[in-house]
């Protein structure tokens, strides 16, 4: 077991012929993921990745031909919202949007539309999902983690890699790692991921990696108090960030005292979560 993806997932890639799309599709294939199709309008009928993966004109035709049940979106920000709408209309159960820089109003419309469907959206502006030893959907490097019983959920990209790497070095493996992304408006929240991990038989403990901005961590802390039986460990980046500065991620904006690392850490600690002072300390807390 794992959450969201496994070795049986049949993956299609929207924007497979772009630089990043092609590079990461190859990585996904090499990791053992069933990449069954690509979609690039205007290039239907061609094959990529040494003739292993066929390209289709649309998501709908790709699904009809291959039975794909998940997609990773690599198309440029300008066209990303349209790509998500297309995937929703085609009825794909899992949509992962890797693309960063989507306009906020596009995302608000997307979220509203996704809510009215049965699809799950992860991202945008996220590294994707990886179930070690089985499959990956997105850009998380495969070599830095091994199978195990820890569920990882994170708002950050490279910081997640740090944590996965540290876990592996300490001999700890991961059930599934979900990068939910750093944007303020996103498809899957910490709470959504925690709910899935709580129900997953293979996950025994959860590591969540937060950062300043918004109130996701505070809201999640309430959820943990009420519903989580499995232990949760956390790290929150940005304790040294000055007030009112925007630190790259659209989400990392501090407004007044809401959204500071201190407010998040105290909310999580109140919920019984052990919070690490630095990423590597998570390992010590888990001993």
């Amino acid at each position, binding site marked *: 077991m794992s959450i969201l993806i496994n070795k049986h997932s049949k993956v299609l890639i929207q924007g497979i012929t772009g630089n*990043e799309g092609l590079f990461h599709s190859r990585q996904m294939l090499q990791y053992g993921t069933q990449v069954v199709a690509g979609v690039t309008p205007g290039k239907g009928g061609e094959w990529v990745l040494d003739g292993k993966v066929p390209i289709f004109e649309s998501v709908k035709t790709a699904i009809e031909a291959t039975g794909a049940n998940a997609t990773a979106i690599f198309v440029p*920000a*300008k066209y990303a919202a349209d790509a998500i709408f297309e995937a929703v209309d085609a009825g794909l159960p899992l949509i992962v949007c890797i693309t*960063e*820089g*989507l*306009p*906020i*109003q*596009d*995302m*608000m*419309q997307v*979220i*509203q*539309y996704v809510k009215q469907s049965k699809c799950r959206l992860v991202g945008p502006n996220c*590294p994707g999902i990886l179930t070690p030893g089985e499959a990956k959907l997105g*850009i*998380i*490097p495969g070599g*830095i983690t091994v199978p195990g019983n820890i569920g990882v959920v*994170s*708002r*950050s*990209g*490279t*910081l*997640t*890699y*740090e944590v996965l*790497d540290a876990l592996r070095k300490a001999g700890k493996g991961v059930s599934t790692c979900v990068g939910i992304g*750093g944007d*303020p*408006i996103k498809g899957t929240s910490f709470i959504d991921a925690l709910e899935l991990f709580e129900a997953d038989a293979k996950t025994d403990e959860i590591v969540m*990696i937060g*950062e*300043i901005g*918004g*109130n996701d961590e505070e*809201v999640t802390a309430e959820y943990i108090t009420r519903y989580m039986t499995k232990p949760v460990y956390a*790290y929150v*980046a*940005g*304790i*040294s*960030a*000055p007030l009112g*500065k*925007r*630190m*790259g*991620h*659209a989400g*990392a904006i501090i407004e007044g005292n809401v959204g500071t*690392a201190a407010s998040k850490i105290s909310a999580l600690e109140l919920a019984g979560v052990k919070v690490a*002072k*630095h*990423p*590597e300390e998570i390992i010590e807390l888990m001993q």
Partner: protein
Amino acid sequence: MRLHEYQAKQIFAKYGIPIPKGRIAGTSSEVRQISEELGGNVIVKSQVLVGGRGKAGGIRLAKSPEEAEDLATQILGMEIKDIPVRRVLVEEAVSISQEIYLGITTDRINQKPVLIASSEGGMNIEEVAQSAPEKIARCLINPLLGLRDYQLRDIAVSIDLNRIYLKTFMDIARSLWKVFADCDAQLAEVNPLVITSEGRLYCLDAKIILDDNALFRHPDLADLRDTDGEDPGEVTARKYGVTFIKLSGTIGCLVNGAGLAMSTMDLIKLKGGEAANFLDIGGGAYAEKVSAATKLILSDPKVKVILVNVFGGITRCDEVAKGVMDALTGKSANLPLVVRFVGTNANEGYKILEEVPYQTASTLLEAAEMSVNLAKGVVSEHSYQ
């Protein structure tokens, strides 16, 4: 990206939101002329992208063209929070009987636009929100449906709006929604929306903040950017597509990913040092970008140590190394360099840096500690490579 009041008002006017008569001016003689055209009773408003203009003396009433000219001379010569005033907006003065707040922004928790209104608009709206939250009415807008009339009628009731103003109020609010949606705004605000003693409604102050991610759809709006209040380093960084924020410490950081960059700063602090900047080179950065980023760090005279921390995934450590080398080549001041490469092409990256002295760390914590010690002038036991 934030627009000036006069720019926001020009947009509002296009959408039919009533604004007082007036024009923008860059010299006091222009101000005098505009004041004469408007009949002498005017308000002169400095146009700078910071709050607190009024309290700084940057918004003044004049009773005659002569007074307007005098005030303009003063205002055009001043700096507000270190930003020089280059332009003033001159508008006819109106007599105010009520100030209303009306704004649309993004509600992150509900992931929808939200319309906010209050019968007690004006400068102290934030205090009202704190002390009398019941005086603030809000309604969420379905982004697929837009703002509906029934919602506006509800809002009007919530703020006790006199029924005789209902139609005008609804027209203004509908237009404000159109501005918000059409311009990809993150905030479109009228504060105050005044009811004059003659019973007319005017937008007295206007604020628009645009979504930087959507500027590709609005080249005309992107051209309105004013970089006067920004750090020059931050302006350069934007040109190269890196995120740079200048801070006050001594350790220059170059990191890939916002989360990791923040975490790097946190660990520096944990070890007793201070970061000189936040710098995220983004995913998949090439040498040219990294070189520009490194030069930004080097341009800060306070920097005593450079810490390069890269966890390669999309980003290749050798590209980062090339960029750093390019920026360091030919520089006389040899700042100590701490490098931590993990992941894609880490060894190749280290190799490229062989020509300059640097120290390397295997963990994040170690890298932070090393940098802090170097910044404090403590000789490290770790050997140079």
